[in-house]
């Protein structure tokens, strides 16, 4: 009985992955709601759960594809692979209106570019300080510091290894959580109390979940302003990191 169910899970691996991720997300959002009172967004907890599962999967099998190396969870590799990932990230661009960014004015646009570049440079600098010298790893870690999705996109397109990509996801995840937790504390000191500064804040930070959760804890009225500019951030990062920024890193190192 149990055996035939397991066989079925292995056969329908992609569908099993949908069910598994759905369950993991349900628990994560529950934890976010009950244990952190929404302070840490459910999506951040879910990604943390994903990384933790990959860690134990890797320890268990000694393979390099995390939980996907366990045949029962092989579908995760397909679901989280490059093809569906790119499709989903491109889909997030639908409905974005360039008119909206004009509302933030020139400083909103500067905030977006500066936000991507500052985070990228910070990631590259720290990776360099820890002994990484090849442009592919430096770019991937820098891109991950931009957001946890730009890292894998850049890493996949310039050929980074899976452990570097995992590191880049972790960097983006930490950034997102730091923004969620630190925003209410820092808000008063950086003048984050009006729509204009919220839009600039969204453009500089970029992580939509971090900005939304951080601003919600600061002043819920500011959330749409921050989220509005933040939606452009990942797209800009996906455009810049594997192109201009990678070429710049190659030129320097």
């Amino acid at each position, binding site marked *: 009985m149990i055996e035939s169910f397991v066989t079925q899970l292995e056969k329908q691996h992609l569908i099993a992955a949908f069910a598994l991720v759905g369950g993991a997300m349900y628990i994560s959002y529950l934890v976010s709601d009950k244990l952190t009172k929404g302070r840490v967004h459910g999506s951040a907890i879910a990604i943390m759960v*994903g*990384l933790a599962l990959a*860690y134990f999967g890797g*320890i268990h099998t000694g393979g*390099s594809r*995390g939980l*996907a190396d366990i045949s029962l969870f092989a579908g*995760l590799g397909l*679901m*989280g692979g490059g093809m569906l990932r*790119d*499709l*989903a990230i*491109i*889909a*997030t*661009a*639908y409905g974005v*209106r360039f008119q*909206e960014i004009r*509302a933030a*004015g020139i*400083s909103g646009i500067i905030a977006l570019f500066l*936000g991507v570049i500052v*985070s990228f440079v*910070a*990631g590259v600098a720290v*990776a360099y300080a820890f002994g990484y010298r090849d442009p592919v790893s430096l770019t991937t*870690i820098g891109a*991950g510091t931009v957001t*946890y999705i730009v890292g894998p996109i850049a890493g996949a*397109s*310039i050929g980074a290894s899976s*452990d570097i990509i*995992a*590191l880049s*996801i*972790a*960097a983006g*995840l*930490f950034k997102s959580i*730091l923004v969620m937790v*630190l925003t209410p504390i820092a808000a008063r000191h950086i*003048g*984050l109390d*009006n729509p*204009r*500064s919220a839009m600039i804040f969204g453009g*500089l*930070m970029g992580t939509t*979940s971090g900005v939304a959760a951080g601003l919600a804890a600061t002043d819920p009225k500011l959330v*749409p*302003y921050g*989220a509005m500019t933040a*939606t452009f951030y990942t*797209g800009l990062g*996906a455009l810049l990191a*594997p*192109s201009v920024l*990678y070429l710049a890193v190659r030129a320097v190192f």
Partner: protein
Amino acid sequence: MVIYGVALLAGCMLVGLWAGDVLGMLLGVNSNVGGVGIAMLMLIFLGGYLMDKGKMPSGTESGITFWNGMYIPIVVAMAASQDVAAAFDGGMIALLASLVAVAASFALVPFLTRLGHPKSSSTTAVASASSASKASKSRVKTSSSSPASARTRTAR
């Protein structure tokens, strides 16, 4: 029809990634140069154009919004299938990199808020954010309309 939306999305992805490959070849870097970003730009313009023409019925739209909604679950699956065990020792790099990035970005907020608006106040900000005349009213207006404009967004 749902498949029209999925097909539009797929078409943007294929052309964008192809353009990224060609760009990489032209630049001689042997990698995909910004293909996903190019595809996103294409979807913004094509989707926006079709929306304005009224050629995006809700069925077609749902073909795109479904994949938009699958974004975080797919990222979770992606995280679960990475070589985290090998990357574990590098955890400090990830933490430090994000800490430096967040600290630097926080520090830039007051600087940029002052830029271009020397006498920055919430009133001028709202007035520039919305073309409505009455600042006090428009504040309520923009804050209620913005979530609608960001309705297809999911947390990221």
